[in-house]
């Protein structure tokens, strides 16, 4: 009986500590927001092309029946977007993936210059001047990259730049998505 009195709080303390450890390890980011869109069809939206850029705009219909597609949310004013741009470009080229983009709250001229300078790996780009489409996608900030299946289902949301460890985690999600196709 006496032993139990000590064992119960001890066991509880171990449980709480183990939960804390689990919560903070494995690259789990306590501040990252789980996406509500996973396994859901892509939201309804239709975006015009960026003014002054030849790439056509992006809408919901463009994400169905087109194979596995990456949807990159970027802006020319966003530093990490610049960092991940060559990596995404390479992933698209080497893994033969279709990449489309949502240009989030950007000045059309600045976005055009940015694409001119860094290259344009995107098949389609929608210009989301108001940020409303970003909210439909549950975007919290740029950059964000979504993996969308051939059926237009959101398979993965990757917040933050696809660089370094992020690139490794993104590739893991991408491999899982490819295997599921």
């Amino acid at each position: 009986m006496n032993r139990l009195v000590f064992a119960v709080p001890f066991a509880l303390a171990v449980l709480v500590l183990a939960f804390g450890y689990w919560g903070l390890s494995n690259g789990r980011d306590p501040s990252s927001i789980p996406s509500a869109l996973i396994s859901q069809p892509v939201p309804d939206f239709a975006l015009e092309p960026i003014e002054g850029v030849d790439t056509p705009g992006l809408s919901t219909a463009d994400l169905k029946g087109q194979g596995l597609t990456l949807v990159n949310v970027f802006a020319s004013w966003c530093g990490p977007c610049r960092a991940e741009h060559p990596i995404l470009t390479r992933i698209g080229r080497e893994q033969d993936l279709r990449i489309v983009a949502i240009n989030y709250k950007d000045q059309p001229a600045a976005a055009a210059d940015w694409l001119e300078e860094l290259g344009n790996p995107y098949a389609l780009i929608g210009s989301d001047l108001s940020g409303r489409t970003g909210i439909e996608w549950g975007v919290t900030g740029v950059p964000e990259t979504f993996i969308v299946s051939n059926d237009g289902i959101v398979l993965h949301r990757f917040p933050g730049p696809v660089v370094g460890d992020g690139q490794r985690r993104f590739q893991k999600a991408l491999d899982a998505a490819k295997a599921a196709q």
Partner: protein
Amino acid sequence: MRRLALILCLLLATPLVAVEPDEVLDDPVLEERAREISAEVRCVVCQNEPIDSSNAGVARDLRLIIRERLVAGDTNQEVFDYLVARYGDFVLFNPPWRPSTYALWLGPFIILGLGFLAVIMALRGKSGQLTASLTPEEQARLEALREKDGS
């Protein structure tokens, strides 16, 4: 006196809000509801702040969307549902009561209850030990002392 004035100033200062004048609705009733809702919605950028007091761009967009939806005739619940569909339960400061949140809502009370239980058990164990540990001689001495004290 000056200190008193300072304290009064601090006490009377309006609470910090980020709602900008151009966002405010003409209808005071709807505006009041919008404020109530946005106090309950977590900003997805600066996560410990409600969108009502956040200066983040997304927070402003969400405040505007809440007002648009209220003007369009949505109930408060419909507005919350709209936000949850896009950002998940995470945006609610007040998590809903459902199987996945039972542990969250009940956990503290269960732990508190276990704590009480442990305290009660510990106290019982102690008092039991005390009475059991008196030998007949000790008991006799105690009686004698008590009698002496009483007289």
